């Protein structure tokens, strides 16, 4: 059962779609329901030991899980295919922007920022294609971004924040250091971001 669950989780996670407990029970654990937590624990240990992946529950109400990469970050060269690398690049820029702006930005602010990088929501981008879809659908589905409507706004406005996968996979310290490097300043220049970065991990 454990090996079946491990494979199930690997396949599901390949697509970066969060895994629901219900799916695990139905497809893999089936009649061994009583041993559910034991099987899941063992699978988690195996994933860590053999693959360096950590099974993390991101929603304790709806019992959804993701696998995050537990290996210390290496230079990106071998990490993923080119297309993935480019998407990750864009994602990191967006996440940095959100973090430096105090962890939450309005959609208008984000798209204005992306304009500066010649990335426009209405136009097909050479590399990213439909950027609006990538940011508002794919990154959200993968739990890298969280987009929530701001109440009492007309026309409807949205706020963008880090999603649970970003919180777990990406180090705020690394983000701050990168921004500091680009701007030629010391990370402590941004005191609230600095203390937040030190506090997480």
């Amino acid at each position, binding site marked *: 059962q454990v*090996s079946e669950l*491990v*494979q199930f989780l*690997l*396949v*599901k996670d*390949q*697509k970066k779609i969060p895994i629901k407990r219900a799916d695990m029970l139905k497809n893999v654990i089936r009649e061994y329901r009583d041993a559910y937590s034991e099987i899941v624990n063992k699978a988690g240990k*195996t994933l860590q*030991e*053999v*693959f*360096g*992946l950590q099974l993390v529950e991101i929603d304790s109400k709806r019992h959804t899980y993701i696998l995050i*990469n537990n*290996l*210390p970050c*290496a*230079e990106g*060269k*071998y*990490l*993923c*295919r080119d297309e993935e690398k480019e998407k990750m690049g864009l994602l990191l820029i967006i996440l940095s922007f959100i973090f430096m702006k105090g962890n939450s930005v309005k959609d208008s602010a984000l798209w204005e920022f992306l304009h500066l990088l010649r990335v426009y929501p209405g136009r097909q981008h050479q590399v990213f294609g439909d950027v609006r879809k990538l940011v508002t659908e794919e990154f959200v589905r993968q739990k890298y971004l969280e987009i929530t409507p701001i109440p009492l706004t007309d026309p409807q406005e949205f706020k963008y924040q880090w999603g649970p996968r970003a919180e777990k996979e990406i180090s705020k310290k690394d983000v701050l250091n990168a921004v500091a490097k680009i701007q030629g300043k010391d990370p402590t220049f941004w005191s609230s971001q600095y203390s937040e970065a030190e506090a997480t991990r």
Partner: protein
Amino acid sequence: NTVMAAQMTDAHRRFLQVLMSNGITEGSEARKLHQHCCETDKVYYAHDKLDDFISTINSHLQPLFMQIRKGISEDDGRAHYAVVNLAETEVTKMASDYTEMELELFRKTMDLIILSENGFASSTDILNLADQLKTRKMKKKEAEQVLKVFVEDKWLSEKNGEYTLHTRCIIEMEQYILSNYQDVARKCNICHSLAIQSQVCESCGIGMHLPCVRKYFRGQAEPRCPKCNEFWYCDTP
């Protein structure tokens, strides 16, 4: 000379993660990756110890019914590595990525390729198959798009409008093919692995991989069949 189940280090885990996300990794790339992983995770590195490195990972993958397997490309004879699922009974690895209809097209294409003389199926023949699927008829444009995806995902490879199985597919599905196409699937007379693209002896019918043929006939004045000794009529590659 058994390798004791050595400990997995982060270098092993990193190597495995990259191999899995690549789908298939060519030999020299794998060696570079081995070095990169050992350097990144500060693990002892010896350039000729790739096989041992992989054995360590495999000893931990064994209880999960997975293995890193090495296969030889039928085109250039180069080694490639892929992570395969040993418990696979069908094209289950693909099952989560494609629709029922696409899988049916793939299975039928695989039939055509394996049953063919030279290991290739023409795009015309495949498009005809698409028109006769049980799930529902697939239009020409749709089928062309699906074939493109199969090539991108490295299940098929395309040459001059004809399709054969990609090295990745052969590594991953060798057991499946040998057991499900027992009477038809050819094994190379030299290396005894599954042969999809092959040259066949006109007299006795044995088959050989093109790279294997090349190696075997190197330095021989006259190419002759290793089994029946008749003159080998195919062009030696």
